[in-house]
């Protein structure tokens, strides 16, 4: 047990901080090309895909290094890299299950964001119960013919490729008839419709697939073995970069304290109020609990330990905290937590845990996304109950 940061980690932190001080853009990049250009600068500096093996363009670094970069970017309020579905889902899936040709073809363009990816998993009738998905891929000679509808697809409007889950065997048990395919989003029969979210932005889209031809060589892993690929990918999605998210909580906390120093209640600054100070102290303690657990998770992952239920437990914990935290701020700030811009007070632009800019109102809405995506809180609890506590299984409809 040693809680000291290694000298390498301290050096990396300093190096990233300095680089961001010199290089971070002053204005938030707006267009896709501006965001891609920023991503490519991060990539050139070696701050993207650090855990990827060298042969695929990464550095073979441990998860702690990438987490340190993420945390420093959150502190500097630097824009995030793009192509997260590529970096966190498609890339790791291809590395673990892809063919030589697929890896050689797709991995480097993912890192450089010259090709953007999306994840085509969820469907209108297959969310938490992903294995009930109904999109089909029918083998016809050298191609699969894909039909179905996907929804809640991040990055859909500009993605070049999608990682698709589709049913290839209708007669097999539900988990055993699913395959994972790479879909060229420019193929005939692919239609992407943006979905406007409650935050006002359009990160999501629906994707309609009508007789889309996907070459057989685009299969990731074996036919009918796609569930395994998908589950590994979800594990990547849950484990990864919580440290950056938690660092954003810390940044928001500091802005909240500044705001409370400027607002008065009964003729004195709100920050002097005992009740408010108590709640702030408890909230900071809770942020630290999340941060220390994130460090523990990273440290165990770095040492190659079995993480057991910790990724699920951690995701459940920070996402539920994030709701309480944004609600606490709203209770303290009253109307000031419900504005949609920072014109009255720049401290109200706290940013959101998704790294999208916004006010407390947006942060509050985004906090409700976190308890839904990458496995809802209820699914995380089921995972813990099944796999860690080994409680009796719930009866399921057959």
């Amino acid at each position: 047990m040693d809680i000291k940061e290694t000298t390498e980690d301290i050096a990396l932190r300093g190096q990233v901080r300095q680089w961001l001080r010199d290089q971070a853009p002053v204005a938030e990049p707006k267009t896709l090309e501006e965001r891609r250009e920023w991503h490519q600068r991060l990539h050139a500096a070696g701050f993207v895909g650090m855990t990827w093996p060298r042969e695929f363009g990464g550095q073979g670094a441990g998860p702690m290094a990438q987490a340190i970069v993420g945390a420093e970017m959150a502190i500097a309020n630097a824009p995030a890299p793009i192509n997260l579905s590529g970096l966190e889902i498609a890339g790791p899936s291809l590395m673990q299950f892809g063919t030589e040709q697929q890896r050689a073809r797709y991995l480097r363009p993912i890192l450089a964001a010259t090709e953007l990816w999306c994840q085509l998993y969820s469907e209108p009738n297959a969310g938490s119960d992903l294995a009930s998905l109904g999109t089909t891929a029918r083998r016809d000679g050298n191609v699969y013919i894909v039909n179905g509808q996907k929804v809640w697809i991040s990055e859909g409007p500009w993605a070049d490729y999608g990682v698709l889950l589709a049913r290839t065997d209708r007669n097999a048990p539900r988990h055993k008839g699913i395959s994972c395919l790479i879909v060229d989003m420019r193929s005939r029969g692919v239609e992407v419709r943006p979905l406007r979210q409650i935050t006002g932005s359009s990160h999501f889209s629906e994707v309609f697939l009508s007789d889309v031809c996907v070459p057989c060589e685009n299969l990731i892993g074996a036919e009918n073995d796609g569930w395994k690929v998908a589950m590994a990918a979800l594990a990547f999605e849950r484990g990864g970069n919580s440290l950056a998210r938690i660092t954003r909580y810390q940044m928001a906390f500091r802005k909240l304290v500044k705001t409370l120093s400027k607002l008065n209640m009964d003729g004195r600054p709100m920050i002097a109020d005992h009740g408010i100070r108590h709640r702030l102290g408890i909230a900071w303690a809770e942020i630290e609990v999340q941060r220390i657990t994130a460090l523990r998770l990273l440290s165990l992952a770095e040492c190659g330990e079995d993480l057991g239920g910790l990724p699920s437990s951690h995701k459940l914990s920070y996402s539920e905290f994030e709701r309480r935290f944004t609600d606490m701020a709203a209770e303290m700030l009253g109307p000031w937590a419900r504005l949609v811009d920072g014109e009255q007070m720049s401290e109200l632009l706290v940013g959101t845990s998704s790294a999208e800019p916004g006010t407390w109102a947006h942060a509050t809405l985004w906090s409700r996304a976190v308890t839904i995506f990458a496995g809802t809180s209820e699914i995380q609890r089921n995972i813990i109950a099944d796999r860690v506590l080994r409680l009796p299984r719930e009866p399921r409809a057959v």
Partner: protein
Amino acid sequence: MDFRLDPEQQALRTAAGDVLRQHCPPQRVQQLWADGCRCDEVLWSELGQLEWFGMCAPESAGGMGLGLVELSLIAEQLGYASAVGPIVPTLAAGAVLGRAPRSDLVDTVLCELVAGKQRIAIGTQRQDPMVAGMDADRLRAQAHRNDLIISGMLPFAPWAKEADAILIPLTHPSGGAGMALVDSRAGGVSVTPLGNIDGGTDWGHVSFNDVVATSNAWLDVDPVWVSNVQAISAAAEILGACRRCLDISVEYAGIRHQFGRPIGSFQAVRHMCADMYVGIENLGSVVAYAAAALEAGTDSAGTFTAIAAIAASQVGTKVWTNALQVHGGVGFTWEYELHLHLKRIMALQGVLGSSDSHAERILASAIS
């Protein structure tokens, strides 16, 4: 950074768990409660033979010189077993005395402590809020020839009645903040029991009426550090008690049937158990981190201790409440073991002190 326990720590944790499973099963604890016994003499002498008590005492005094991470691992196991007796404060006292400059008194007491012949209580004054009136009679010392004359009141001291000696925070007549080791049978020391909900612990408030102690009874040890050690140990004991609550809840949910199936197959029950697990994972991270920070002497160790205290209090309440809910009516009966653990958690929350004071300390460090 490496959160893994090293092999020795792992072995210590396992060994402690084994010993307590054998010598401190729930039926034994139930019996001690029924007998009104506040120190399990059989367990105490067993642990003495296994040379547990010198675990945190320095090697020069015959101890093992282990640190606060190890102390918290042992405290966690004692919490899991709901062991009865001043074991944790005596182990912690080994570390406190080891930190004090050597003297005949320190050497003698350490020697007896290592042999299992000294039970030591640790009193602190951090446990706010004070009862009105007690505040006025703060502990103080006067020098008289080679002696110290100690007067005043220690409003809250766990284990004061069972202990042979009490470590109290005391400002030296010349002005230095430190601790003093006072023989609890010395003339002028009187312990008034404070009945508390946990039948396996003993609380008291202690008055000192011109108690004469030798001048080397004053120890140059930071009382804030001592109260941090006490808080970390209490948080670790709560962690252990929480683990026990979860284990018996999962077991019960697997065997109790209602509506024709085990209640552990109902999502509402499963989710209560999962929430207990989440709290325990978080608390485990924080207790280990705070103990390591305090052991390493980092500047922010006090803040991490306060964070661990708040986490222990919050998680403790959540876990025992859910455990009781999972058990239903059975959990509310005296003869079932759950009440031992939930009362241990409740009492230890008292030892952790007011979370308001911790919150203020944390906020001050966060916005400084």
